[in-house]
């Protein structure tokens, strides 16, 4: 299993605790915060929760959505910074 923290501002143990629904609804049982993710956010979070590295997550997103790895990486980084503020 790879480490999801290499360049992620979200700690893996915090990600593991999140309750994530297929609809994109996310509940943080530690803070009581809830979030709604779009499909790319949901896919990213599910991959990171499984232990996929940020780099591999970006590669998966690029493949899935037909964009370059650079575009996917940049979007993923922005998402993680934003999400990390709440965790």
């Amino acid at each position, binding site marked *: 299993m790879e480490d999801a923290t290499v360049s992620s501002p979200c700690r893996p143990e915090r990600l593991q605790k999140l*309750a994530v629904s297929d609809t994109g609804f996310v*509940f943080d049982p530690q*803070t009581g915060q809830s979030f709604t993710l779009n499909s790319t956010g949901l896919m990213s979070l599910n991959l990171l929760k499984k232990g996929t590295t940020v780099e591999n997550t970006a590669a998966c997103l690029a493949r899935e959505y037909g964009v370059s790895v650079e575009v996917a990486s940049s979007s993923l980084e922005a998402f993680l910074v934003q999400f990390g503020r709440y965790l």
Partner: protein
Amino acid sequence: MTIIARKTNWRFANVAVTGINARTENPGPGMAVARCIRECPEFRGRVIGLGYDALDAGLYARELCAASFLIPYPSLGEKALLARILQIHEQMGLDVIIPCLDAEIPNFNRIKPALAKLGIKMLIPSRDQFNLRAKDHLSAFCKSIDVNVPESKIVSDPSFFDTCEADGWQYPLVVKGIFYDAGIAYSPYDAKTIFGRLVSQWGYPALVQKMVYGDEFDLTAVGDGKGNLLAPLMMRKRALTDKGKAWAGVTVLDQGIEEMANKIVKALMWCGPLEVEVMKTDDGKIYLIEINPRFPSWIYLSHAAGRNLPVTVLKLLDNECNFDFPPAKTGKFFIRHAQELIVELIDFESVLITGSLAEIPERWIQEGSGYAEHV
């Protein structure tokens, strides 16, 4: 009339609950406590509501309280309270009382030995425990056990608010009544207005506290009097009333808050229900705001989260508690709402004239509440 001490299993107990007022902006916890007990499938006893005012909604909540009685206000002292409890005991045969309001705990403490002789049990903090967690002693207590608390100061002279900024007390500040209530002051004028209101209602002195910014969390649990924190349940406030009370919240699990509560209960050897109010800052620091010596008004959430704390009190009083509580369910929300309770004139009349609203005993016997076997 002879009053006989009853010996009843908690499942068949007559449980009196106070604090059954239900003002929407700040309801007492009593009705939620009654609801927790009534909704426990094993409970076959009766809940008896004890109110202070004929407009306390719980007096008329027939689905919760089998009978209801008015009791004297705490300011009338313990003798008046004991006399009234004895009258109610003669009529109902009480087994347990769960006091749900801060101001009545000292009186109940004083009459505890007399009630114990009659077989009426209570799980409440001792006078020392009650005093140590009081607002005016909280800072010193927290320092002694290394718990963060916002800097606070006792204020008796309102002129303090004109010069406090020069001494490092920058606005906004929280001004608190000695027993209850608080307000946020953004200027000396605000502070003096709030101070005047609080001391006229709750007496001198008041407290001033530096603001801490963050998210508000509450923890409720039961202390067993031996230093153990039983069945802690945490809730994050999701929406507040004008008085800063939660009207929506969600159960959470935060190790830091639980550790703080453990420390408090261990240091005080706390006995009975409690609510620990904390503020968690963005950098993860947890500040203790208040310790309340009773269940919170959101206690029904404990039943929903799989840890029915009022029933835990009944079990503890009956020495039937295995301390093996299931994990509290996180993600359980509550949203408080107001509802009109329809009251028949004859019931209102009964409360006003006799101070009680009771069913006839034959009816309870028919309901198979377990009463018949014990009288």
